[in-house]
């Protein structure tokens, strides 16, 4: 099974600033995803991080707000731009490959915007 490490694990940020979250997988994976979990809510898929090309965003999420990079098969970043208190959530990185059929999750990044 893949082990996923996220940094930072938590942060408190000022509104109007940006935060970049890093996701590192200990093995090469085909698919990487970013989810948001708002307080007391379920997980919502933000986007699929594509290696070497632009991420594929879900309805309601845009690249200007959540730019994503995936320079190789083991690493991705999510940036939360121009933050507002409404962006306070847990952001989770997920990865899966074609050998194992389940998705693995990182521990998440707990973001508080003040």
């Amino acid at each position, binding site marked *: 099974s893949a082990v996923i490490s996220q940094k930072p694990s938590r942060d408190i940020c000022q509104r109007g600033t940006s935060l970049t979250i890093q996701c590192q997988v200990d093995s090469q994976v085909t698919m990487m*995803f970013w989810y948001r979990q708002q307080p007391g809510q*379920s*997980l919502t*898929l933000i986007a699929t991080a594509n290696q070497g090309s632009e991420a594929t965003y879900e309805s309601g999420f845009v690249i200007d707000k959540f730019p994503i990079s995936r320079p190789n098969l083991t690493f991705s970043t999510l940036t939360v731009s121009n933050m507002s208190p409404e962006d306070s959530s847990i952001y989770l990185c997920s990865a899966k490959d074609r050998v194992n*059929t389940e998705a693995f999750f990182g521990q998440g990044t707990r973001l508080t915007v003040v």
Partner: protein
Amino acid sequence: AQSVTQPDIHITVSEGASLELRCNYSYGATPYLFWYVQSPGQGLQLLLKYFSGDTLVQGIKGFEAEFKRSQSSFNLRKPSVHWSDAAEYFCAVGAGTNFGNEKLTFGTGTRLTIIP
């Protein structure tokens, strides 16, 4: 588009009692179904999964789930809960055109509380 419904927001069970968490899904084809558990402050851990074959699947920590196509359900069960089972449980359905690239749609979760 696929969807998942977990009708129970919060369930309280006595330690040692049996448990069943409900999950209903909506998807046009055969779904990939998952149960994840999230302990406070932790990420998600996979409990079990269903892709095909035997409709009763066994998972970790003594959990099992049964896929019932006629009822579009994938309920999670455990015969005897332990205090350490207190957590949030998420049912998820995966759907995609190519094996291995399916995205997950999660239910709203069921919070499980265990009382002595």
